[in-house]
């Protein structure tokens, strides 16, 4: 924030930092961000609800973003998503009962030559078969 020209320029960084800390952007985190940025909680909310990768609802320990855009679609992302839903026993958009995994469809990850692709944390994976995807998720759960 010290580097920012105006405090609110750092809004996304602050929200991401708080999300890293709490797992998701809780109401308390929104208030905390507002204090840090010199904004009202509503102004922070306006930003938080705008971005796909800011979570305003609780998520599992591992959040799996499965690309559903055109290149991955052509390479079987629908099949990949169906397999993951079955394996995890949840629908896309939901979190497993043990709070371990949240499964989210997402927009193009810019990994189109490696479709179907997915993202966990800051890492892109692809092309992944349903089995490989399950193994990648298991690895991340173990690491947590």
């Amino acid at each position: 924030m010290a580097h920012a020209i105006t405090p609110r320029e750092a809004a996304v960084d602050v929200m991401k930092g708080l999300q890293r800390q709490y797992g998701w952007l809780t109401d308390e985190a929104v208030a905390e961000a507002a204090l840090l940025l010199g904004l009202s909680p509503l102004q922070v909310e306006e930003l938080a609800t705008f971005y796909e990768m800011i979570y305003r609802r609780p998520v599992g320990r591992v959040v799996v973003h499965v690309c559903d855009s055109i290149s991955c679609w052509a390479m079987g992302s629908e099949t990949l998503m169906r397999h993951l839903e079955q394996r995890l026993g949840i629908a896309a958009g939901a979190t497993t009962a043990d709070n371990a995994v949240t499964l989210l469809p997402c927009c193009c990850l810019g990994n189109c030559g490696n479709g179907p692709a997915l993202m966990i944390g800051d890492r892109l994976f692809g092309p992944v078969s349903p089995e490989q995807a399950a193994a990648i998720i298991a690895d991340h759960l173990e690491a947590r």
Partner: protein
Amino acid sequence: MDAILFKYNPPDRAVTFDEYLADGGFQAMKKALAGMSPNDVQQAVIDSGLRGRGGAGFPTGRKWSFVPRNLPGPRYLICNSDEMEPGTYKDRVLLEHNPHLLVEGMALTSFALGVERAFIFIRRGYEQAALKLRSAIAEAHKAGFLGSAICGSGFCLELDVHLSAGRYICGEETALMNALEGIRANPRVKPPFPAVKGLWGQPTVVNNVETLANIPAIVANGPAWFKALAATPEGSGTKLFCVSGHVRDPICLELPIGIPLGEIIDTHCGGMRPGSSFKACIPGGASTPYLTKEHWAVAMDFDPVAKAGSRLGTGGVVVFDQTTCMVAATLNLVRFFARESCGWCTPCREGLPFVQHILERIEAGRGEASDIDILKEHVQKLNYAFCALAPGAMGPVEGLLRLFEDEVREHITGGKCPLGKH
């Protein structure tokens, strides 16, 4: 062919700072600072014929020339690295392969424009690329190519990396400026154009990663050399093509701009994957209308692709084989745009979900003959949206109706998807 952007083609490893220096890196910077005026640099870019690589293809040097030279206060340069157009991944590959080119390109552009603080706006998902860029910036700083009194001249520049949190509309240049300022990223009204009133109300130029990465070679080797890299006499330079979908080798390559579509697929991507035959492709990301086998020889440059009824866009070529239902493909594309609409204006917010609904109905075999007219009407009417998102979303719909109307009608008359997808 002389390559500018990819020292290794395909770019399977990263270029180190030392390698970049040894290979003539930052020589263009030294040349410009030692013996060129900012106007000389701008003129070289104008003469080179370089057109913006972010999708619109606007002449880069002309864009720079719109910045008034006599306004008080700072000016800004923004590198648009919010690469979220589905089917496009060239900027990520470029950043991961050679971030130094972008650093030098931004420094030269800043010199030409009188910018002392520039920003790189990077999308969510490209954190690994951002890491490499940040270390490239640190190395350039250490070597005296960024910071104050660069190469002993009076030129100063700081580069800031801004990481976003995922939203396609942030790639629209005025929405991007709002995002950078920490404001909800709805597009701004134009005019005033960013060149006059942009970031924090100051003159601002927004250029794509690939565009900026071309600048050092233009300054070092001259406009004529750059122009001659193209495959056609009308073209200028090289182009990154990032191919995905049903080809054997879906890769990102630097090729002469104007290379025929068929050559990219057959010669450079190993043709179609086994058992596949070419049905159609989108030539430049999700918002560009389809090309088919009849367009096999089309020169992949801005004007020839426009003449063929589509747009070169980003150079993100997504290839579909004979098993692909074009209604389903178009539905996937429209669903993306409907979800990514920022909701600011009614035609986009309400129109795209409606178009999505019609396409869903047709794909499910519940379409009606009148649906085709409704879709055609929306191709026209969504041009009234506030920004280019909704007209872009209708690109593939327009292509579907023009090139695959029979396939759409088959869905409606047969009451099911003829390719058995649903």
